[in-house]
Each structure stands twice: as C-alpha cells, then as structure tokens.
C-alpha cells in the first residue's frame, strides 16, 4: 500500500512536470527568441542591440474593431518579423509579409509603406484563421471545427482528398478583399467578378437567391453561403452536387476547373453583410434588386436577325440549358429532351414558356431566366429547328427513344426525370386506367399531347399507325391485361346546367364538401389527402389542361371515377348529373384567365 502510494504520488509529480514544461516552453517563445537573436545580428546601432537584448518573449496582439465584430489577432506573436523588411528571405514564421504595389503599398525613399497596416487591419480580416490561438494547429484553423481556416493556405484533414489540393492559392483571399472592395469590377477581385458573371451565365441565379442579385427559390439561398461553409464544401457542391447530399437535385455543370474556382471564390465572398455597405445602402440594393450590379454583370448578346438561329444555338449551349435538359449527347438528366422540340412545340409555346415557364405548364419547376426578349426569340428560333433523328418504326423502339425518359423502363411512370415533373408521368402498368379508356383517347393523348403537362404532342413524329404500335407495345409489355369491351355509360354530351353565378356557388359548396380533401380548397390538387395518393390528384387550376378537356370527359371522370387512381365514382355517392354540372361550372370558373376566358361572360 505504501509503495503504491509512493509510486502514485511520484506519478502525479511527473505529470505536473510535463504540464509545467508545456506551459513555460512554448513554441512561440522560441520563435520570438530566435527573432531577437537574428535581429541583434542585423542591428546597426548599439542602442538597437541593447533594446533587443532586453526584450523578453511576450504575447503580441492586435485588437481590430473597425471590421465587424472585434477581433483579437495574436498572429504576430509568432509572425513577429512580418513588418520587419530585413527578414524578406527568411523562412516562416520569421518572414516579412510581402509588400505589393497592387495591394496599394508605396515605396518612399526605398522604404515600403503598407496600405493595409497591420495595426489597423490585423491579420484575420484578410487571411481568416483563428486570431486568438497561439498554437499553429489551432490558429491556422487546421482543427476540423474551426469554420474559417486560413483562406487558400490551410486545408483541413477531413476535406475530400481530390478537392483539397485545388483549394490552395492566395487568389482565394479575394473573397475577403471583396468584403470591403465591393466596386463592380475591382481589379483586385477579378475572381469574384468572374464568379459573379458565371453565376449569371451558368444560370445559377435561376434556382438560387442571393440578396441583391437574384431571387431563385428552387435551390438554397446563397446570400451568406460564404459565412456558413468552408471552401471544400462550396467546391464539392459545385463539382459533385450529390457528394454531400445524396438527394440533391442540383445538376452537375461540368465546369472547367478555373470556372469552379471563380465560383467558389465568389460564393465565399457572400457573407450576408459585408464591411463596406451601410444599412441604408443595403436596403436600397434590396429595393432595386441590385439592378446596377446585375446589369453590369449580365452581358446581353446583340441579336442579329440574319444569324438568329446560330446565336440562339450558342446561347442554349453556353448558358447551361443542358445542365437539366437533354440535347443530342448532352444530358442534364433533370428536364425533358429538347431534341425534337421543333416537332412537338410551336414558336409561341416555346417563347411563352421561356418568358414564364408556369404560363403554359402551371407546375413546371423551370426557373424564369433573365434573357432579353431578343435572346428568347433567338433561342426559340433555334429550338424550332430541332427535328431530332428519324423516328424508328417499331413500338418498342419508339417507346425507348421517346417515352422512356419520363415513363420509365418498366412503364411505371418512374422514368429518370419523372420526379421533376408535375403532374407525374402516367403509370402505364395500371391496367385499371389503361383499359378504361378507349384506344382512340389513348392515341389522341400520344399524338396531341396532354395540354398543361409535360406530355408533348407527338403527332408530327408519329403517324396514327406508329402511335398504335407504341400503344400495342405498352399493352403487352407493361399493362399486361388484354383490353376489355367498355360498358356503355350514361354520360351527357353537354353540361345540362347553364353557366352562371348560382351554379358556380352551388358547385363551390359541393367542391369544398366532396372534393377539397384531395384536390384542395383552392382546387390546386394539394388537399390534405394528396400526400398519400399516387398519381397525385389533378391540379384543377391548370387552365391549359382544364380547357383542353370537354364537359363529357369531366362528367365521366367525376360520375364514373378514374380507374387506377384514387378518384372514386361519385355516382355511387349520390351525385346527380345536375350536381356534377354545378361542379364542372365551378371548375371552369376558376380557370377563366386562360384563352380569353370562354365562360367569363356567362358569369359576369
């Protein structure tokens, strides 16, 4: 017992020895002593030598209060020679901080004068890193928890190995220069400017919001992305969007490395609030949407009517349309194939869709991009020339080349891009649906398309014969049930109830009672039950769709239900033809905006 006690006590003593050694023999003290020794050798006068001899190591610090929250920078404790020009050739940490005319440093009588004095700016305002630390590991921000490692100098151990080497280089510091130098084309922040241009030319702004620059809502807000994330994350999200979030729908843009770098630097400079702007400036920018900055950044192409198609093609290819769409061998894997655009759409459709993607397809996720009218026209002209390659003859070949992208390999509607389409592509394996529709109706869907949805009119590509072949292939490969004779149904050809205020009011009451659970109170298909239903309830505010179906079809869908979907036959629940007539009038009345409103007059 006594021996164990003695050993234990001795052990405690030893540990204290180690602790004291660590406490009183710091690396920074040795650095400072080395500096004093060197400086004594270089000293020219005895007084200087004596002053250096008298100096003892101590913690040096610069308190910086002019730039955001007060910073305490103790970097000069080790980098003690940073302002001593005699140490220009020494190794770090005892190296003079370089002087640079580009940074505004001036030379007077052979002596350099700094524009950015350390006593005013400290170190971390430009370099990042952790100013309070005295240990290189922590103060350079190597530890994985430090949010701002030295920009372009320190990479952290957990960063992805293939990204880390690309994230070194002093040009990354431009992100911090831009916190004060916010001029539109400041020469010192060329990468920020380039990144901002790329942000527009690669159409990042379509999905992302940056306060004062853009208003995209599909992707995350990037206004303070530089404050939230480190370089590796920014680089990773651009170069390989799915690497951090497997469910990310951001397209891979396949940018050149220097473009990625410029974007990363630009994004790193987005810290919400920068040092240069006042509250009132910030508010003004918010009001104008950063008009000046945006105009300076977006460079519209002068469209020459003679070269419209060629210029349109260049725009489509340069401005990252294929980051989502398919065109030839470029495929973003998110949006429909444009290869046959000239055959399946007409000029007004494409142009209107460009101007406001939701105008023709109310549930389209395509962002509204900022092109000039001329540019839109040129792109439209180009897309109209796209006629694809000759269509194959057999049903299977047709399905694979035209239908598969949306309806999927198994015909179940889960095609590669299906999750980005609304309404979702039809599940062709549901025999209930397929066999409750006449062949004529299905052929019509193929050849004339379904208005207001992503289903295009294939009529110019497929003859009646080819459409039937395709249908036959779908029937045998996916639906797998032979077609049956359809029972005759008692459906009025025309709506028996006259359009009018009373009828619409009755219809609305009925709708709220019976339909709103799935179709939603507004009729937009987003009722509380819609979450559990596939296919999703129809958006009844999709005017192009509603206007494209006649009363007879609406009657049939409501009274006899839609087989293969959650829509029940309402005739079983006691709806009379007059009730349905009221409902149809109500549904028509909420879609009056389209096509001049064919029923508008009846209500007024």
């Amino acid at each position, binding site marked *: *017992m006594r021996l164990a*006690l003695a050993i234990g006590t001795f052990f405690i003593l030893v540990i204290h020895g180690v*602790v004291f050694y660590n*406490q009183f023999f710091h690396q920074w003290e040795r650095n400072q002593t080395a500096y004093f020794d060197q400086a004594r050798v270089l000293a020219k006068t005895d007084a200087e030598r004596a002053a250096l001899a008298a100096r003892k190591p101590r913690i040096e610090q610069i308190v910086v209060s002019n730039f955001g929250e007060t910073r305490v920078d103790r970097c000069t404790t080790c980098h003690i020679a940073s302002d001593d020009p005699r140490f220009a050739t020494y190794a770090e940490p005892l190296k003079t901080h370089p002087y640079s005319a580009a940074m505004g440093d001036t030379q007077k009588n052979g002596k350099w004068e700094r524009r950015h004095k350390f006593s005013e700016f400290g170190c971390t305002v430009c370099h990042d890193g952790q100013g309070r630390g005295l240990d290189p590991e922590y103060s350079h921000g190597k530890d994985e*928890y430090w949010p701002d490692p030295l920009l372009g100098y320190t990479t952290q151990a957990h960063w992805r190995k293939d990204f880390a080497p690309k994230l070194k280089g002093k040009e990354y510091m431009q992100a911090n220069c831009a916190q004060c130098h916010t001029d539109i084309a400041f020469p010192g922040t060329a990468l920020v400017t380039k990144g901002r241009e790329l942000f527009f030319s690669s159409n990042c702004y379509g999905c992302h919001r940056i306060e004062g620059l853009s208003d995209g809502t599909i992707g995350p807000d990037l206004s303070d992305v530089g404050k939230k994330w480190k370089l590796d994350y920014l680089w990773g999200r651009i170069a390989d969007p799915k690497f951090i979030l497997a469910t990310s729908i951001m397209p891979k843009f396949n940018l050149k490395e220097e473009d990625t770098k410029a974007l990363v630097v630009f994004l790193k400079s987005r810290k919400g609030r920068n040092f240069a702007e006042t509250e009132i400036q910030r508010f003004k920018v918010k009001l104008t949407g950063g008009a000046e900055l945006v105009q300076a950044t977006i460079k519209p192409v002068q469209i020459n009517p003679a070269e419209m198609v060629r210029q349109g093609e260049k725009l489509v290819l340069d401005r990252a349309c294929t980051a989502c769409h398919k065109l030839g061998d470029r495929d973003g894997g998110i949006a429909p194939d444009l290869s046959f655009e000239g055959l399946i759409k007409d000029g007004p459709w494409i142009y209107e869709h460009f101007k406001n993607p939701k105008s023709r397809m109310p549930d389209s996720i395509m962002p509204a991009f900022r092109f000039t009218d001329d540019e839109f026209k040129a792109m439209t002209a180009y897309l109209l020339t796209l006629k694809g390659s000759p269509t194959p003859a057999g049903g299977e070949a047709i399905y694979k080349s035209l239908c598969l992208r949306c309806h999927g390999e198994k015909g179940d509607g889960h095609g590669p891009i299906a999750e980005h389409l609304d309404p979702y592509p039809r599940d062709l394996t549901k025999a209930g649906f397929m066999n409750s529709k006449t062949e004529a109706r299905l052929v019509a869907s193929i050849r004339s398309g379904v208005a207001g949805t992503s289903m295009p009119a294939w009529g110019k590509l497929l003859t009646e014969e080819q459409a039937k072949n395709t249908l036959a292939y779908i029937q045998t490969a996916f639906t797998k049930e032979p077609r049956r004779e359809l029972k005759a149904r008692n459906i009025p050809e025309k709506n028996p109830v006259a359009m009018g205020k009373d009828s619409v009011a009755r219809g609305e009451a009925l709708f709220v009672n019976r339909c709103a659970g799935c179709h939603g109170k507004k009729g937009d298909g987003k009722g509380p039950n819609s979450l559990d239903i596939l296919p999703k309830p129809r958006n009844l505010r999709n005017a192009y769709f509603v206007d494209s179906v006649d009363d007879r079809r609406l009657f049939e869908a409501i009274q006899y239900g839609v087989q293969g979907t959650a829509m029940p036959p309402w005739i079983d629940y006691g709806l009379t033809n007059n009730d349905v007539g009221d409902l149809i009038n109500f549904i028509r009345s909420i879609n009056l905006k389209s096509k001049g409103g064919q029923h508008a007059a009846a209500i007024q």
Partner: protein
Amino acid sequence: MSRPAAPKASFLASLLELPKNVWSSIFRNPLPSNDLERSATSFTNFFLHIHPVKVHKHSLRPAYTFGLGLISFFLFVILTVSGILLMFYYVPSTSQAYDRMLDLRGSVAFGTLLRNMHRWAAHGMVAVVFLHLCRVFLTGSYKKPREFNWVVGVILFLLTLFMSFTGYLLPWDQLAFWAITVGTAIAGYAPIIGKDIQFLLMGGTSVGQEALLRFYVLHVAVLPAILTLMIAIHFWRIRKDGGLSRPEDADPKVSLVAMENAVEVKASVLEPKKVYGFQGLVRGPLTKVGEIPDNTVYSWPNLFLAELFVFVITLSAILVLSLLFNAPLEEPVNALHPPNPAKAPWYFLGLQEMVSYSAFWGGIGVPGIFVLLLLVAPYLDRSPKGVGKWFSRDRLLANTIFITFVVANIIFVIIGTFFRGANWAFVTPW
C-alpha cells in the same frame, strides 16, 4: 517553571521555537504511537474528525466498495477547484463565452489543462456516481437503517446529472448548444408542466443568452451549494447509521449474557435535576460499549491511508486523461445550422434514443418510473436479508429488476452514441 527567565533570552527562545510552536498549535498530537494517540489524531483534526476513530475491517475491503463513493467525492473536489479557477476566465455571455474558450485553449496559463480536468472529471463523476449507486443497490446496502441515506444518494445522483448538464452549455459551441436544445426538449415532453419547465430552464423558447445565464448561475452557485449540503448530510448519515453496511456474519457470534440487574428506566422517571452523561441518552446501534468482540481497526492509519490511496489514483487518472485528450471545442454556435444528428450529452443519449421511439415514454415515462422505483426501493423492499453481500441470492428479484433497467439504459446509451447517424438513422460505426 520555577523561576522566570530573563525577558531577552525568553524572546529569543520563543523565536527559535516559533516553527515548532506554530506546528504544535495546529497539530495537537505527535505522530501517534499508541491507540490513545491514534484516537486523538482522528478527533482533534477538523478534516479527520468526520471519520470514526475505529472502522470495521469489512468496510476496508477494496472489492466491497471499490472506493466508488470516495472517488465521487474526490472528483467533486477536483471539479470544485478546477471550476473555481475556470470561473476567473469565463463570461456567461453569448458574445464572449466562445472567445473565452479560445483564450483558455490558446493563451491562458494552464487553461487547456484546467478545462480538460474539469471536463473529464465531470464525465467521470457522472459515471462513478452511477456505479456507486449500483454498488449500493447490488449489495443491498439501502436497507434499514440506511433507507433515508439511500434517498439522499439518489438525489445526489440526479443533482450530479443536472450539474453536468448545466455545465455542458457553457462553452457555447455547437456541441453545447444543440445538446442543450435536445436535452431541454426532452424535459418538454413531460405532461402538463413539461413546456413550462422547458421555458423556465431556458428563460425563453429557445437556447440563448437567458439560457446561458441561467445555466451558469445554476452551475456555479445554486447546484454546488445544494450538492455540498446533500453531500454533508450523506456523510453525516453514514456515521449515524453505523458506518458502511456489512453482512450479519461480519462479526463473530457471541452470546451476550443478559445483565441480571438491568432495569428498564423510562425517561419520565428520571430525576430532572440529575446530570446524565451523553452515553446515557444515546440509543440505537451507535455506541458499542465493548460487549461485542472487536472486529474493528483504528482509522489511523488504516482508513486514512486507503483514502489517500484512492485520492492519488483518482487524481492521477484525471491528470493523465487531461494530458492525453483535449476537451472538445466545436464550431461557434450557429442557431440556424444544426448538426445532423444533434445529440444530447452521452448520459442522456439513452433517453434520446428512447425518445426516438416514444416522446413521452422515452423522455419521461420510463426514466420517471426508474427514478421513482429507486427512491421507494428501501421502503418497498423491507426484507433484512442479503445486506452487505454482492449479488446475494436473497435479493435475486430486486437485483434482476435493477440490472435489467441498468443494462437496458447502457445499451440505449451505446446505441445512441455510436449507432446513430444523420436523421437518427441506424449506422454502424465501422
């Protein structure tokens, strides 16, 4: 002294004797060489007089207690000392707390060591106090007459948890912020008053400046005061309950010869004017007047050396841990960017894991029942059998219930710590 010495010589003599006199005025006894002096050493020293003069041999067996109670106490002492030193550098303000942590790590003398010691001793104390509780339960030591001291012990355990929990927030980093957000949310699952407790703890609807200040005050003033008081009661009752528990057969059986002339005297019969000695009034198992064979040894040196040994071991362990492992310090708080998953401190991860199955039962129901069972255990389990032995067969049922709860909790803690990834999905750590 027969004749007075010359004043000058006497003054010189006193100067010479000064160190000796100072020493002997503080330590009244020389190093003891006989039993009388051994006794005197124990009860004339302020720090030693809480101990009995003599201690039962059974209480000194290392494999019976593993010194867990003592380790808990010494960890508390280490925590108090390191905590007070840390208080000199800490500011409970959301804008300064994290910077103070950086200073402690970077430039304060011994700052890293202090923080490490405080952090590891705190984790250690939670673990050791819990082990101590297990020891007392599994040896049946909570039985009569130690029922109330057991209750005090359970309260001490809860206080230790709360103490550690309140300290968890103070570094004001992401780890702290989200652990407390999760922890207080668990409290919010309590029925009826849950939301109010949560609000009271945080001083608002989310963790912020008010919460930091509340946790700080609780951590450095309120809880330590209560904890110190409860520890004092805990120790005092150990003495009053006759020392540590021991099995009936720890003392050889002797047949006491009944005193023939013993007379039962009622207090009311006693003459009011008569002066009674203290011994005459004390009842119960407190004083043995030599009629039982002595199976005890003197506390000096047996008990004191053992205690010193436990202290040295505890301090060495904490020091080594503090040298080898740095207390974590994660990113500064970002209330808009929770880590995924956000985890409570490890000792509450069992609760968080259970909460992921059922908010009420996991967060309040099951732990509430467990604590309630612990508190009433000595009042429900009245059988005097099985005291003082590990895993006594007489206590099979009680021990089985207890071990089931403990093992289940440990498994949940392990799952919560190592097997839960983003969105609380099951992951394998390798």
